[in-house]
């Protein structure tokens, strides 16, 4: 036992212990320094990161703008969509809950399997959609029984609804889910990423998608690490989309669709002063409601394979030879160029020769000697061969363009076609061939290369009826017109055709319907104030062979449908005080005067009755009511 050694040992230990203590104190101050660095110097940065962690911004889909007709009737609206969702963690037995739900409403087996699959994949608090588009009855039945349905929740969403079904399928169009292609092509908008969000896919819905869409609202929520929402921190409602008002009148639209029945046809009714499209019809059509919820393969195949092309809007995308409806343009071109005078006459022997080629008039025996007005009235082809040759194709084309043919009319729809008005330069450039006089002959009666759309023919008729003012078609009445740079209030440009030339042509159109030899004399409106003027047209689908001419051309009804001619008719009324113009085309309709003209007449008469623009005069309206009674 050595105390000295023990004391030395103790001293060494104390020294070493103090060294250790010092080192530990130093390390502790490092920790304190680090604490200061994190919690004071970098606090702002980490606070922000903590907020980023916990706060989630959720988009709130805005209500899509409605679309109304000109009377304020909704043609595209938002309907409540009653949905059932299931939250797994709130039920002990998913299968039993679904069984109970099946007792109340029919749950399709597919949906049941999908729900069971999703409950296994998704986190317990994520709502899984079970069924959509429930009726109010089903919805309330589930609501009453909700205490027996743990985990089942009812939700009310919005879905697009087209109350008039196929009436506006082509003009208003429809909405659909955002596709990969939409995401690439459209301007970026966070709304597009929102599950279940719908955008315009065709028609007005597509053209005015931006204003209709509105802007997204946001909801800031606090969420935990697993994504469960704990609470809502703040909410900013978005702006609902703007409502649009169409120029179309739903009553007239309905009438037109019914009147055209089973035909494959198109019609456009215009206000000749403003260009307002009062009705635009393309039949057959389809039900856009099928597209908003997802169309069945069978229905889609049916639409696609239908020879009457229900999916295309024939009124603006269908291009047809105008046939004799083009003759007003040829006549005006000849009169304005001064190559003929209004009393210029031609002898029609039923055909005319150009070199070795024989050009036929539709009337086999010929019309005899005819002036301008009679030629329009009776639609003599030989007269128009003659004056077309005199004035030349380029002058005709110039006049046609003034009347809206061969160009796009800036309609508020995608896919509008421009038609074709040939010129010498066009043929050289396009086909590499010289223009032949025979080409002019064909163009003179609206055949050959000439192509127009029903909308263009309606605009042509409106510009004839309004005395040569360049009106453009309008589909939307409210402020969005300015988007296109079209100022509705600006006075339309004048074409500058002399009044007298115009008078002769219009008199010819009057006689078509009201003259004793008029091609459409069966379709006149027998009311003094509402008399109609018009012009028939037949567009040949196939050339008539020499043999057929000898043996006699088969009547339209006797030929197969696909080989029958297209029947066209353009008209306006009232003749004395023109207000409305119409163009009708019936594909493979055969006779213009028997099929297209009565349709045009009925459409105009209905328009006059409804008088969507107004000022038709109380006198006429009361008189008509008197006649009805």
């Amino acid at each position, binding site marked *: *036992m050595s*105390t000295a*050694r023990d004391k*030395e*040992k*103790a001293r*060494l*230990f*104390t020294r*070493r*212990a103090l*060294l*250790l*203590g010092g080192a*530990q*104190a130093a*390390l*502790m101050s*490092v*920790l*304190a320094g*680090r*604490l*200061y660095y*994190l*919690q*004071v110097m*970098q*606090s702002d*940065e*980490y*606070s922000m*990161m*903590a*907020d980023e*962690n*916990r706060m989630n911004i959720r988009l709130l889909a805005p209500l899509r703008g409605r679309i109304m007709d000109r009377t304020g009737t909704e043609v595209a609206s938002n309907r409540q969509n009653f949905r059932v969702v299931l939250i797994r963690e709130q039920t002990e037995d998913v299968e039993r809950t679904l069984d109970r739900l099946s007792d109340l409403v029919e749950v399709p087996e597919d949906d049941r399997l999908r729900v069971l699959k999703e409950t296994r994949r998704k986190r317990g608090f994520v709502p899984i959609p079970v069924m959509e588009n429930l009726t109010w009855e089903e919805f309330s039945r589930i609501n009453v029984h909700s205490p027996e349905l743990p985990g089942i929740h009812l939700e009310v969403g919005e879905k697009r609804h087209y109350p008039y079904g196929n009436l506006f399928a082509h003009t208003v169009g429809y909405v659909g889910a955002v596709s990969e292609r939409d995401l690439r092509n459209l301007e970026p908008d966070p709304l597009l990423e929102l599950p279940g969000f719908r955008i315009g896919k065709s028609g007005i819905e597509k053209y005015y998608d931006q204003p209709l869409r509105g802007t997204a609202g946001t909801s800031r929520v*606090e*969420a*935990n*690490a*697993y994504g469960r929402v*704990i609470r809502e921190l703040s909410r900013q409602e978005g702006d609902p989309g703007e409502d649009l008002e169409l120029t179309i009148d739903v009553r007239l639209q309905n009438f037109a669709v019914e009147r055209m029945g089973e035909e494959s046809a198109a019609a456009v009714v215009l206000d000749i002063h403003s260009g307002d499209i009062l009705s635009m019809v393309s039949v057959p059509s389809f039900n856009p409601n099928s597209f908003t919820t997802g169309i069945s393969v069978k229905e889609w195949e049916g639409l696609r394979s239908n020879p009457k092309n229900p999916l295309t809007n024939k009124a603006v995308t269908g291009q047809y030879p105008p046939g004799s409806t083009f003759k007003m343009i040829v006549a005006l071109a000849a009169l304005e160029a001064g190559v003929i005078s209004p009393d210029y006459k031609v002898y029609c022997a039923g055909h005319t020769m150009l070199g070795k080629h024989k050009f036929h008039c539709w009337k086999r025996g010929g019309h005899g000697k005819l002036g301008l007005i009679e030629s329009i009235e009776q639609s003599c082809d030989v007269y128009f061969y003659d004056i077309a040759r005199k004035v030349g194709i380029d002058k005709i084309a110039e006049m046609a363009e003034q009347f809206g043919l061969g160009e796009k009319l800036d309609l508020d729809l995608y896919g509008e076609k421009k038609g074709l008005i040939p010129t010498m330069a066009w043929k050289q450039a396009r086909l590499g061939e010289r223009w032949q006089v025979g080409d002019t002959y064909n163009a003179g009666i609206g055949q050959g290369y000439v192509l127009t759309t029903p909308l263009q023919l309606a605009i042509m008729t409106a510009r004839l009826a309004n005395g040569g003012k360049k009106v453009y078609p309008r589909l939307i009445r409210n402020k969005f017109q300015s988007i296109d740079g079209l100022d509705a209030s600006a006075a339309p440009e004048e074409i500058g055709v002399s009044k007298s030339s115009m008078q002769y042509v219009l008199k010819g159109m009057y006689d078509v319907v009201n003259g004793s030899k008029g091609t459409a004399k069966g379709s006149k409106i027998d009311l003094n104030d509402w008399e109609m003027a018009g012009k028939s047209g037949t567009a040949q689908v196939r050339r008539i062979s020499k043999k057929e001419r000898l043996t006699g051309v088969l009547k339209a009804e006797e030929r197969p449908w696909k080989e029958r001619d297209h029947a066209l008719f353009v008209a306006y009324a009232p003749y004395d005080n023109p207000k409305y113009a119409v163009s009708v085309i019936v594909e493979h309709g055969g006779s213009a005067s028997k099929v297209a003209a009565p349709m045009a007449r009925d459409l105009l008469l209905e328009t006059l009755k409804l008088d969507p623009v107004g000022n038709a005069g109380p006198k006429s309206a009361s008189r008509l009511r008197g006649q009805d009674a």
Partner: protein
Amino acid sequence: MLRELGARETDLTLTKKILDLNWGLILLICIVASVGFMMLYSAANGDVNPWASRQMMRFAAGMVVMFVVALTDIRIWLRLAYPAYAIALLMLGAVEVMGVIGMGARRWVEIGPIQVQPSEVMKIALIMALARYFHGLDMVEVRRIPYLIPPLVLIAMPAALVLRQPDLGTTLLLIAGAGIVFFAAGVSLWKFGAVIGAAIPTAFFAYQFLHEYQKKRILIFLNPESDPLGAGYHIMQSKIALGSGGVFGKGFVQGTQSHLNYLPEMRTDFIFSMLAEEFGMVGGLVLFALYFLLIAYGFAIAIRARNQFGRLLSIGLIGIFFLYFFINIAMVMGLVPVVGVPLPLVSYGGTSMLTLLVSFGMIMSVYVHRDVYISQRKY
């Protein structure tokens, strides 16, 4: 004169011993443990169940053990030092063998109904064995290298077994704790320098043998932002919790990082992050101060002890306690890799709580028997 020479050994009655316990130290332990209860209460969104209540029960049981250990004569601990080490080593071996037999990686053995983590037992047993060994050396022997070989073997065997479990954190803790005993026993400084000098190339070499997840932890530690959703997520979220707490914190049970589950392991390894988020830097520094006092207490007891075994035992145990604290806090602050070391007395968990209370029991036993003279060669 006899008193000065440590002749109190015969007149220590149980009553005297109880009166002589470090009540200040016990109070500090209770306060620190209560901080843990509080945080566990917060972790349950303001509920004592399920964690705080269980932790309290474990703490109460641990306190009883602590008193028993504290009142046991220091010489009994001296005698038990080597047998305890041998048993702990056997248990570590048993864990290893069971792992080999095919029950997968395990860190515990079952003795009757109780699960025991041999590595926890070894933390105390190793310090006891080393204290026992150095107690038996005189000043000359401590300076001679051959005398240092047995204690190095004492360290190497359990360190190798624990590393194979694999538990890198505990391995380092054992080595560092043993190092403190070596240092306090008077092993010359240059030898430490030599060992550290040799350790660095060895570490690089050993790195090759680490498990993939251990390597990844070290790499992610160097740049946690490089892997924000993977292994770096823990450190990143912990730093966000700390930093967003600011000076005064978000308030009790108001921590967003912890209550919205962004903070991982918030009841165990990352409990300090939750505390610093809710009580801010002020709360963090108060906890530091409590730990500082606890450790200072341990040092004071070590310096005050009259026998070398008691000195080395208490400085070794308080050293391990400090290492626990330092590694855990440095880890949650992103200063060292995530090695899975709990915050002593605060983190949720029964085994480490018991180990720590036994350690404090021994430290108190050293204090109670501070004047007991133990001959260098007697045992």
